[in-house]
Each structure stands twice: as C-alpha cells, then as structure tokens.
C-alpha cells in the first residue's frame, strides 16, 4: 500500500495567531510586519522577569459557541478554530470517514486547564475538580476534538516534539497519505500555555527575551540585540490530500507537500548543536526526498526564534546545505511578529511558507535593525520581497527542545 511517490497536496489553510484571527488577516499582518506581542496585564505576572507574550488577536469566545468552549482547553479551542477554517477553505472534501485522518500536535498540551484544576483542588477539594479536566489536559485532546468535529476515523495522532511538533504533524500526515492509510488528513499544531508557571519556567532557562519596556520589538531574529524568544499562542492547520483525490474533486491546490526530513541532534536536552549538524541533515534529507537541489529553493521560513545561539546554529546549517545558492534564497523569521507558538509554530509557519510560495512574496522579518554579521543569510526585512516565478520549492524549519529537527519542503504546482 505504501507508495512513496504518491503525491500529496495542500488544499486548505487555517490559522489563529497573535497577528490575526484567520489566515487572511495573519498573512496581511506578516507582510506588513505587524507584531502580535502584547503586555500580560494580569497581576500574576507582576513579579516575573518577563511580562509580555504573543496573545491571539481574536479571543476564542468571539468566534466559538460558549457551551462548546467551556468543554475545551484553550489550546483545543484554537485548534478547532484553525481546523474549521482550513476545512472550509478546502471546500469540505466529501469522503468516507475511514479515509479521513488527523495529525494535530501540541508541544505542551492542556497545561492551563491542569493548573486551574490543581488550584481548585487546593482551594475546594477533589469533589470540585472538573470532570472535563482529563480531556482538557491530555496532549492528544486537541487532535481528538478536531477528529470528532470532522468525523475522522482513519486515525488520530499527536506528535509531541516540543517546538517541532506542529511541523512533525505535517510530516506525519504526509506519511499517512503516502502509506495509503488515508486520502485526506487535517494536520496542524496548537499551543496556548501562557501562564505564570510556563513564563517562569522558560525564564528560568534564560530562554526568553526580557525586553519588558518594548514588547513589540522583543522578538528580533538575526538582530544583534536579540535576547531570547517571546512566548506565543495560536494554532495552524492544513488540509493535506492525495493529489488524485484533490484532482478528482477539482479542489484548489496551494502547493505540494514534497517531503519531510526529520532527524535528532543527540547533543543536549535543550541546547542546539552549535554546528547545526542535525538541522542540516534534516534539510538535506528533505531536499533529497523532494528531488530538489539548492537552486530550486526560493524561500525559507526559518525557525529563527530570536535566541542568541539558536539563530546562529540554524544559519550555519542553512549555509552548509545551500552552499553558494544561499544568497538567492529569501529567508524570513515570522516569529518576529507572532512570537514563538511552540507546538503551533511549525504549522503556522508552514501556512506562511505555503502562502509565500503560492503568492510569490516573502513576508518580512520584523525588528531587524542591526543585522548580526555572523548570520550571513539573505534575510527579508523592511518590505516583503517578490519571489521569482516558475517551478520552485520553499522550506520550513522547526526545531524542538530534545534535539528534534524537522524540515518540510513545499513545491509549487
């Protein structure tokens, strides 16, 4: 049944992010360099070293029924919103539910519901702990709700690989269709874990920017002044579909999911390999899998979290893979606007990479004022950049604590 040559295409996109409550608004914001990072007004953050984050532009309750929302953790709400948009965007393929699969990732899961219920336990005893708390906290909850909503029965999966999760889900979906297990898979990633404890925990690792006086400029990939990433929340979703299935129903096709390269660093639990060897290997595997050469690559949506070491390690890896072609590749770091959506990042950034390919324009990297000379990439900043026409591929990188590396390649159709 497995057919590694079975072509898989993207027919629907969905997103809810700090920059916009849907794909169109997010995309317009990414072209314009609009930051979705804001101060955390809650007094629980007052004594923390970081008091800002990328919070979704549209609160879930504005677009979701109250009764439905109360059953769900926030990350599940965002996942459903993005998945429904993607499903509608794909014109709702009509197929046997046993041929419809879900691969929806999260890095952290329903941690805010868990913590809220723990507060309830301490304050009021076990009998007041919500009966919905387990479905809310389980990491597969978002995928399961999306599956229930769409009636998917081919299988529901939740890759967990920290900040690479969302991209891994897309890779998983690709393999699900290639293996013949499904004809259509809704893939994506979600995260909504902004809470004093997660802020404190990432801050304890010294991973977060502390630019409290100027939050919209805190996420600044490739800039000399970068001092860590900015937490964000949001979700992205893609409808992946076998090319035959899409063609048979005359679906609009954004791009082909040409390949995925997945590797592990084997270096450190939370530090990137400074040479970026594992990341480079993932990109090479992806290019090989796509049958593409460095000269085919027109754009990279980089992982680019705005950490001092991570940005350099990834840049080193990109240069080693692309060689002399690197100067012709427009690199964008959209976390400069969204913040780091952790398990949602790979999915939202794949949406951005696909739109860049489809619309032949690369979004900006905001806040790049003093480029770090060690980066040496052709970074898009200031104005969005027109990409060349013709057959081409784009690359989306995602890396996660634990040494996970995922490189996705999307090809023009």
């Amino acid at each position: 049944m497995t057919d590694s040559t079975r072509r898989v295409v993207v027919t629907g996109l969905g997103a809810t992010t700090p920059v916009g409550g849907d794909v169109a608004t997010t995309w317009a914001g990414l072209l314009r360099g609009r930051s979705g990072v804001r101060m955390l007004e809650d007094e629980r953050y007052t004594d923390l070293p970081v008091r800002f984050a990328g919070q979704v532009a549209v609160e879930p309750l504005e677009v979701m029924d109250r009764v439905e929302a109360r059953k769900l953790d926030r990350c599940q709400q965002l996942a459903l919103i993005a998945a429904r948009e993607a499903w509608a965007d794909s014109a709702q393929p009509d197929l046997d539910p046993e041929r419809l699969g879900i691969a929806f990732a999260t890095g952290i899961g329903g941690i805010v519901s868990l913590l809220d219920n723990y507060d309830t336990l301490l304050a009021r005893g076990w009998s007041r702990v919500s009966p919905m708390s387990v479905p809310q906290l389980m990491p597969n909850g978002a995928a399961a709700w999306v599956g229930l909503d769409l009636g998917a029965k081919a299988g529901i999966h939740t890759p967990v690989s920290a900040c690479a999760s969302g991209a891994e889900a897309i890779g998983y979906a690709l393999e699900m269709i290639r293996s013949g297990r499904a004809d259509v898979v809704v893939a994506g990633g979600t995260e909504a874990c902004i809470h004093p404890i997660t802020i404190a925990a990432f801050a304890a690792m010294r991973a977060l920017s502390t630019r409290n006086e100027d939050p919209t400029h805190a996420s600044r990939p490739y800039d000399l002044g970068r001092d860590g990433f900015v937490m964000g929340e949001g979700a992205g979703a893609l409808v992946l579909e076998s090319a035959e299935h899409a063609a048979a129903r005359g679906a609009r096709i954004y791009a082909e999911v040409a390949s995925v390269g997945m590797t592990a660093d084997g270096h450190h639990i939370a530090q990137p390999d400074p040479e970026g060897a594992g990341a480079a290997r993932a990109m090479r595997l992806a290019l090989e899998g796509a049958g593409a050469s460095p000269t085919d690559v027109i754009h990279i949506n980089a992982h680019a979290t705005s950490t001092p070491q991570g940005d350099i390690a990834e840049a080193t890896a990109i240069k080693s893979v692309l060689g002399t072609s690197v100067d012709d590749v427009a690199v964008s770091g959209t976390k400069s606007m969204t913040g780091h959506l952790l398990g949602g990042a790979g999915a939202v950034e794949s949406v951005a990479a696909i739109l860049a390919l489809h619309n032949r324009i690369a979004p900006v990297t905001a806040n790049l004022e003093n480029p770090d000379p060690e980066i040496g990439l052709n970074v898009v900043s200031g104005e969005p950049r027109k990409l060349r026409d013709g057959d081409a591929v784009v690359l989306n990188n995602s890396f996660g604590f634990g040494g996970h590396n995922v490189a996705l390649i999307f090809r023009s159709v």
Partner: protein
Amino acid sequence: MSQTLEGLAAIVNEVAGTPIEDITAEKSFVDDLDIDSLSMVEVVMACEDKFGVSIPDGEVKNLRTVGDAVAYIDAQS
C-alpha cells in the same frame, strides 16, 4: 416555576446551552437535554454549590429527570 427549577435551569443552560424555556420538570437529562455523564457531574457540582446540598454519586443515577433533581434538592434543603 419554582426557585429550584429556575436555578437548575440556569445551571443546565450554562453547561449544555439548552434554552431555559426547554428545561422543564418532565425532561430527562440524558434523553431530552443531551447531558452526557461528564456534563451531569458538572451539573451536580454546580447544584451542590448553588443550593448548599450534597448529592452523593450513588444518588445521581436516580436523578433521571429535571423534576427528580428538583425534588431531591428541595427535600435536602
């Protein structure tokens, strides 16, 4: 409508979104109001808080209809 029924209807509306006017004494939680077992736990918890009563797990299966629950709560308080 008794005060208890009114209070219970507000809780069911909050948990399940059922319109208040549809929540009448003869309605079954499971068959008519689409309250699954987890939602029923939520309804019970909210009733305990609102009416200051205790509804042990063993009792819950006897509360088939809204009227059953109202009678039980009224007898307790």
